[in-house]
């Protein structure tokens, strides 16, 4: 794998000259590989030459000061940047060794494989059941009503919401509390059985107790899904993730095992951020 990287380094981006990510961003068995990813909003470049592997069944946390491009990077992974006007993605991103920006890759299929949970809980203004069932319905995952019921139940169970809502599946989803709504959104995402779940600051709109519930949930989901989580809380990154990537002004500064990054940051910028000198 690393030979491939050096080959592609023959055309380096002038902007990224002199910058190298600290730590080993490669993995032996990656699920997603990103190489030389540059993202532009119009003329403004938001990401500079990002190289990063994301493994199977791991939780990787993306941290960094706000505006450093964490969300932008996350959106590259399921092509949500496609719907942003003026956004251009360069570079090579592969999911299970398949180029996700290839012509023949259908973003609809990609987003079924790479689900996304957003910062603010955004349930559909429909019933709890319909929220979870929507994905399986449009993808035709359930042959009949019983199968659909099963999918809804498993998804809600995995999202740790089943006990709370099993008696009121036909109630409006918008009547749930913020934390429940976010877990519903997670259930909705995993109902289509994705390989990767992207989470963009999923707890930033929640209270500490709801946050703790979701963090525990993320830990449980790790056994089935690859999870990429953006967070502005270093404690959260430390609690839920195995690897951490630190972004700064559109560049990936440092990546490594979470324990190492937090106990022994190697790049001065990372150290400043982690010790709370800015951010």
């Amino acid at each position, binding site marked *: 794998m690393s030979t491939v990287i050096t080959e592609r380094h023959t055309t380096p981006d002038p902007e990224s000259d002199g910058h190298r990510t600290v730590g080993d961003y490669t993995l032996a068995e990656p699920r997603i590989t990103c190489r030389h990813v540059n993202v532009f909003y119009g003329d403004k470049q938001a990401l500079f030459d990002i190289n990063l592997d994301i493994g199977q069944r791991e939780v990787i946390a993306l941290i960094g000061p706000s505006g450093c491009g964490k969300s932008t990077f996350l959106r590259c992974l399921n092509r949500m940047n496609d719907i942003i006007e003026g956004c251009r993605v360069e570079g090579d991103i592969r999911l299970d060794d398949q180029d996700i920006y290839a012509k023949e890759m259908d973003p609809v*299929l990609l987003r079924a494989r790479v*689900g996304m949970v957003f910062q603010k809980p*955004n349930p559909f203004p429909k*019933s709890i059941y319909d929220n979870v069932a929507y994905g399986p319905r449009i*993808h035709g995952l359930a042959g009949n009503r019983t199968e659909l019921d099963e999918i809804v139940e498993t998804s809600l169970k995995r999202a740790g919401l089943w006990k709370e809502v099993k008696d009121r599946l036909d109630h409006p*989803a918008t009547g749930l509390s913020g934390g429940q709504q976010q877990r519903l959104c997670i259930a*909705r995402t995993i109902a289509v059985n994705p390989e990767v779940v992207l989470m963009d600051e999923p707890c930033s709109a929640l209270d500490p107790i709801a946050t703790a519930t979701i963090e525990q949930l993320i830990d449980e989901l790790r056994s089935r899904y690859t999870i990429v989580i953006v967070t502005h809380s270093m404690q959260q990154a430390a609690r839920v993730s195995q690897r951490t990537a630190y972004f700064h002004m559109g560049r990936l500064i440092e990546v490594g095992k979470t324990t190492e990054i937090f106990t022994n940051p190697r790049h001065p910028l990372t150290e400043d951020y982690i010790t709370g000198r800015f951010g």
Partner: protein
Amino acid sequence: MNKTLETVCSGLARRRRREIRFRWYGRIAIFVSLAFLALLITSIVARGYKAFWQTEIAIDVFLDPEELTPPTPEHLARADLAGLIKRSLRQMFPEVHDRRRKRALYRLVSSAAPYQLRDYVLAHPDRIGQTVRLWVLAGADVDLYKKGYIDPEMPASERRLKDYQIAWLRKLESEGRLVLRFNRWFLLNGDSREPEQAGIQVAFRGSLYMMLVTFALSFPLGIAAAIYLEEFAPRNNVWVDLIEININNLAAVPSIVFGLLGLAVFIGWFGLPRSTPLVGGLTLTLMTLPTVIIASRAALKAVPPSIRYAALGIGASRVQTVFHHVLPLAMPGMLTGAIIGMARALGETAPLLMIGMVAFIVDPPQSLLDPATALPVQIYLWADSPERGFVERTSAAIIVLLLFLGIMNLAAILLRKRLERRW
């Protein structure tokens, strides 16, 4: 700290006064507009409500077998029905011999009376040979008298009814033969030269059909255009911008221009028949479409983007996102826009004049391709007629138009309430 508090407190009273003053401005503004609305409606209702009642006279008609057999429509069309009515009037007032007075006597009943007699005979052929009491429409002047528009105390030369006519009417009244009844003719008849026979059926149907055509075309077209422009069209594209500008301009074009366009395109090029609700509806569609598009786009814009992200994020296509999630949320707003456009179209007169919907039409249209008028045009026509009966009917037609509008708005509100149950 204390200093700050003092400064804040000193300004507090002024701030509160300003707030109270502003609230009063608002109340006064609302009061003034409501007062004008109330004034408008009461004046129209006061002038028009009597048109919903109509004087009818009971006459005893001998259903002469010689004249009326066989009782078929073809035969009755040739029979001297007016003669039978005149005969019964003469029998009711045997003292009248003078020719002039006889003519005045015949004018007590409307010229529609023979048709009422015909309808009666067709409905009851078994009564031929008997003398029956028939309620027929009174003449226009009798109606005015009964409704109190003619003052018997005025000098005879200044009123429309002579003393002897008033004496006849008093006699009829005392016998209970002169009665104000609900005026179904006003609702069932088409236009007429005689005010007592004129009705709004033609205009009402014309307006209804036009609204159906306009809604059936402008709502789906407008929504489709809005969805495309808002959800699918590329941003910052010269052509899209040009289309947007043109739609906004079209919404401001005077309606008579659309009338000219309708005349040239639908009647001139396509050769559709003049004066028909189809052409009227098409013309009003042209006028309504920009409004619907603009309102629908605003409704789509108001749907939070997070809903779109949620749907796209689990792999819904853009069309699925729009039709499953965005459209249901935008529907109430779109409906409001459509109704505003339709309400404007309903009251529109100028473009209809251009496409010939001002004709004098007696028979209610049976289809979109039969000539018709429209409510605002009928109002315009009647407002131009000098007869007292038409003055009343003008206001009555306005009442019908306002009711039409009210029902349309009510339907929209109910529909919106249903759609708006947004969980």
